[in-house]
């Protein structure tokens, strides 16, 4: 029969990926939503660099005509909260001094507790885990007053440590569960080998388990940083006058302002308060997502 194989190659043009209508619509919608989420941040940033004259003209979305850094300095140094006008800088340093002990206490307490519950034979471990699970949902208000009394009786009330301790207490159930679930995934044989070799609770933790905990430590760290830095209520309740975190000073400044509201300074102060966790977020975003979903999908 005749050769049916084509001898002259027909060149077909390269198939272009058809841009489906639904794809365009999807992206359009997603971009609009992204704008919805991005706009407030844009507004804060833009307002904080504007002069008050331009702000009073009311064009909230317009870029500054002349960019001024003055609101930022004012926010930092001379922001007024009630009677004092010392700026938000004290709040910044207070927040840091609250954050560090918080991190230390939370990480140590929750990791060791999670480790003990996950990898050691404790008969009442499951019962305790269930109790912890319930404690994670308890509203702050029901334990607030006794904690205040406890803090004042022990002399901690109004100090950085008081706020840090309360944060650690509130976070303990959730963080312990997170650590426990992570440590549960460690193969049993590894612990058996460690028991045969050393059998020491602390030594096994420090030399074997802790080096394996890098990932979860970052996740927990991010959770603690965001919840402690962004907290308002615990700071309001336990910080007294000398340990007020940034959010507290910010809120006081805006709520108790009398007379004219200085928007650009307020926005600069708000931005200053928001920047540290945002930096952590944009810097370690991958772990952040892991952290939230780890925090939500418990047990």
């Amino acid at each position, binding site marked *: 029969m005749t050769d049916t194989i084509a001898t002259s190659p027909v060149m077909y043009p390269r198939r272009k990926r058809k841009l489906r209508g639904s794809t365009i619509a999807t992206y359009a919608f997603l971009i609009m939503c992204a704008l919805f989420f991005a706009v407030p941040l844009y507004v804060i940033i833009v307002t904080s660099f504007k002069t008050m004259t331009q702000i009073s003209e009311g064009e909230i979305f317009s870029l500054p005509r002349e960019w001024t850094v003055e609101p930022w300095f004012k926010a930092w140094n001379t922001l007024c909260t009630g009677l004092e006008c010392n700026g938000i800088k004290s709040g910044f340093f207070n927040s840091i001094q609250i954050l560090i002990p918080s991190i230390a206490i939370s990480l140590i307490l929750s990791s060791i507790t999670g480790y003990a519950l996950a990898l050691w034979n404790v008969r009442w471990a499951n019962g305790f885990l269930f109790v912890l699970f319930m404690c994670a949902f308890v509203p702050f208000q029901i334990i607030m007053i006794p904690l205040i009394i406890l803090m004042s009786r022990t002399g901690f009330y109004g100090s950085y440590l008081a706020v840090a301790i309360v944060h650690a207490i509130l976070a303990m159930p959730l963080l312990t569960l997170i650590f426990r679930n992570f440590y549960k995934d460690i193969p049993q044989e*590894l612990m*058996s*080998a*460690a*028991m*045969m*070799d*050393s*059998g020491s609770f602390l030594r096994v933790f420090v030399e074997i388990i802790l080096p394996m905990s890098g990932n979860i430590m970052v996740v927990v760290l991010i959770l603690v940083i965001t919840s402690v830095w962004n907290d308002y209520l615990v700071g309001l309740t336990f910080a007294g006058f000398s340990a007020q975190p940034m959010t507290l000073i910010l809120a006081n400044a805006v709520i108790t302002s009398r007379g004219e509201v200085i928007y650009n300074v307020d926005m600069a102060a708000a931005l200053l308060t928001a920047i540290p966790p945002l930096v952590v977020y944009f810097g370690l975003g991958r772990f952040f997502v892991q952290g939230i979903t780890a925090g939500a999908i418990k047990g």
Partner: protein
Amino acid sequence: MPNIQFNQIVKQYGAVKVLENLNLAVGEGEFLVLLGPSGCGKTTLLNLLAGLLEVTSGQITIGDRDVTDLDPKDRGLAMVFQSYALYPTKTVRGNLKFGLVAQKLDRAEIDQRIDWVARLLRIEQLLDRKPSQLSGGQRQRVAIGRALVKKVGVFLFDEPLSNLDAKLRTEMRLEIKKLHAELKQTVVYVTHDQIEAMTMATRIAVMDRGVIQQIGTPDEVYESPANIFVAKFIGSPPMNMLEVTLSVSGDKVTGQHVPTATAIDLSGYHFAQRPESGMAASVGLRPEHFTTGVDAAGGQAAVFNLPLLYTEKTGADATAFMAAKDELMAARIEPALVGRLQIGQPVTMGFPSDKLNVFDARTGRRM
């Protein structure tokens, strides 16, 4: 090297008794293999010995010490695990060192031991690598090294070769055997693989459902299995079991096998107790003892003439499977013979009278 004693061990989980009144003695320097199918309790027994599990009741002694209430690290044991269980964030050297530091040895002694083990197991080049950078065989050797470096008298192995490929398994079997010959520790070794048991053990304890079915040397367990379970567990392909009815007249004992209409002459078999006519028994015939050949020469307990179903060749061996009514009878044959046989054609096989195994059909025990 210490000996080990298990006295009246009971291990219970809630209402389930995994081990009940188990007694076992392991001699000094012995290589005892706990052999059995999954769930037979062999790993439980090992973990009880290690101290990773607590006995419900009973006593365990190592040497002259009662270790029943001691922590694993105080019992003077070392263990090698199925998945090696190497510490992932430590180097090989760190893995070897970890247990030694707990024993509070001085640095010179520790370094000396590590060097000795590294040379012994040929892992000197690997000392600074992490477990994730090692192959399966290398990891296994480091795991063994980690146990060796503790210089204790008792070694426990929990199915250490099951994660290795066949070739490595053969190599490691030899290696472990060599180590035992050289260092002479008391070894308790758990496996479900009978080849490992047969090649490495000085004695095998065959277990099923929490009970030791038989303890004996590999030869004893192979040639004189104590019950049907052991008989069928050891040997591949497994022993053929024929249900017979005994008829005794004088010194002559015959087992009548109905499906193949064969009378098996059991007169040459050494019965523990005088059998009686009418008793139901199981006659065990190992595939490797069948003889081919048309002559029903003397010394044959039975001659079978059965149609061939199929054959299997494995290079060195061949097995013929014949139909015994609804059951299969396996017999080892010369590989060369396979070409001369035809499927469906009857094959004549003889079985020698000195290789018989007879079991009580009711209790399963050897008669």
